[in-house]
């Protein structure tokens, strides 16, 4: 999944927006979800789905799959809320917890969709560059940049190792899990050695985060209109509620 999300982050229609805008949208909506009632939460959920699928043009299958995974996970978390375990071992449902659990489900999914909007429309390097503009320590920012790059390096190594293992009908034994970890660690060390060497050959300076935002990072009218409509709807929901 990580590669698919990452690809869409670079290829969606909202890529040209400044990362600040997307971050603000996501965080404002997140704040609305966290502070507001269920009406706002439903609106945000729908609005984010609209923005992700219709405006950013991320296929519904991708969004749906991610949402499903999140829902399953949420379901397990909620299950622990609505059941009660007592001694001697018996499990009972607590009826009074059902309604709070349902509310929690809506809030969580709405908040999750804000986060998903951010991750599917904005590549991580743009967000890290934002951290740099926010004057966080350079060491942290560079660590983030490098880690992002290395995540995909090791992920590919792990995927290829798994593939080769499967070609030999392996990958089912827990010992293979240990071997995979061991190999990844060896790869990590070897990459460290090669990377430090090639970095030294290039002068030994890591200075990521040179970025000038695209000059014509304009916000299309349709998106502004959609934003305003959503804000109006939110205001309406607020007054009603």
């Amino acid at each position: 999944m990580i590669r698919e999300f990452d690809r869409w982050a670079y290829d969606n229609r909202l890529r040209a927006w400044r990362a600040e805008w997307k971050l603000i949208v996501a965080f404002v909506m997140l704040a609305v979800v966290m502070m507001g009632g269920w009406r706002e939460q439903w609106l945000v959920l729908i609005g984010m789905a609209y923005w992700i699928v219709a405006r950013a043009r991320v296929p519904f299958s991708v969004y749906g799959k991610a949402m499903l995974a999140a829902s399953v996970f949420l379901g397990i978390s909620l299950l622990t809320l609505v059941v009660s375990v007592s001694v001697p071992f018996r499990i009972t449902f607590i009826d009074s917890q059902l309604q709070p659990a349902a509310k929690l489900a809506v809030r969580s999914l709405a908040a999750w969709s804000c986060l998903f909007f951010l991750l599917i429309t904005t590549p991580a390097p743009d967000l890290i560059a934002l951290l740099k503009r926010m004057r966080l320590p350079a060491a942290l920012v560079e660590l983030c940049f490098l880690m992002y790059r290395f995540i995909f390096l090791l992920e590919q190594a792990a995927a290829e190792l798994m593939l080769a293992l499967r070609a030999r009908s392996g990958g089912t034994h827990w010992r293979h899990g240990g071997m995979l970890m061991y190999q990844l660690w060896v790869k990590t060390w070897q990459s460290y050695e090669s990377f430090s060497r090639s970095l030294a050959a290039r002068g030994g300076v890591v200075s990521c985060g040179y970025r000038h935002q695209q000059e014509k990072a304009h916000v299309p009218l349709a998106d502004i209109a959609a934003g305003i409509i959503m804000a109006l709807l939110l205001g309406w929901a607020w007054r009603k509620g």
Partner: protein
Amino acid sequence: MKTLLLRMERVKYAYQAERYVLNGVDWEIPERKKCALIGPNGCGKTTLFLHLNGLLRAQEGTVYWKGRNMYERGADWAQWRREVGIVFQNPEHQILAPLVRDELAISLVHAGIDREKMREALAAITAEYHLQSWLDRPTHQFSLGQKKWLTLCCTMAAKPDLLVLDEPTAYLDQHQTKQFLKQIDAIHQAGTTVLIATHDMDFVWQWADVVAVMHEGRIVMQGAPEDVFADRQRLLDIRLDVPLFVRLWQAWRPEEKIVPRCVAP
């Protein structure tokens, strides 16, 4: 009558909806031949390989293994996967175990060897590939050539009927290449069908019995090297080229259509 080991019919596969990496592959691998697969990078070779033993399942089309439709109910995929051995491009990403001994054991378990017979099987494969001094050495200290050799040994430990190699000689020097190919020839002599994907046309010219040319998710040409390489223009169109020997011959005797196969001195 030539026997087919593997046959693909209109095989299609897409990682993302509607973007076909394999776009209707029709392909035949005859038994006990030296087969070569050539094609520009990005033509779908790796994806094709993953269909050779069912690591991927085609979304359309069919794969026949030893005459049997593998997409039918009840086809024995575990058996199929045992009978096809694939050595991928990067040996770094295939060796899993910390010691050579363990690495061979993974393959032997895959081949269906029992615990009791494991010791004998290990001794047999060790003797066959001269690995005695390697058994207790850690794999990560190996050079690239040694790693390639080890991946070959591990794949052969399972005694496959079809051995698939993806660019086996890249990064090897001439001597290592010769050694590697000598072993491949021995494997072929012993009755295994060998398929090699490569960018080295001179090697294809000298080695292969059958060549398949892949382009944009399809097998566009297939046949003996002298037939495939006779049509230079067509190959140039798909960004390939003919072997040096063929080029020299055609420059020397442009009137002759057929280039003789001969091994370089």
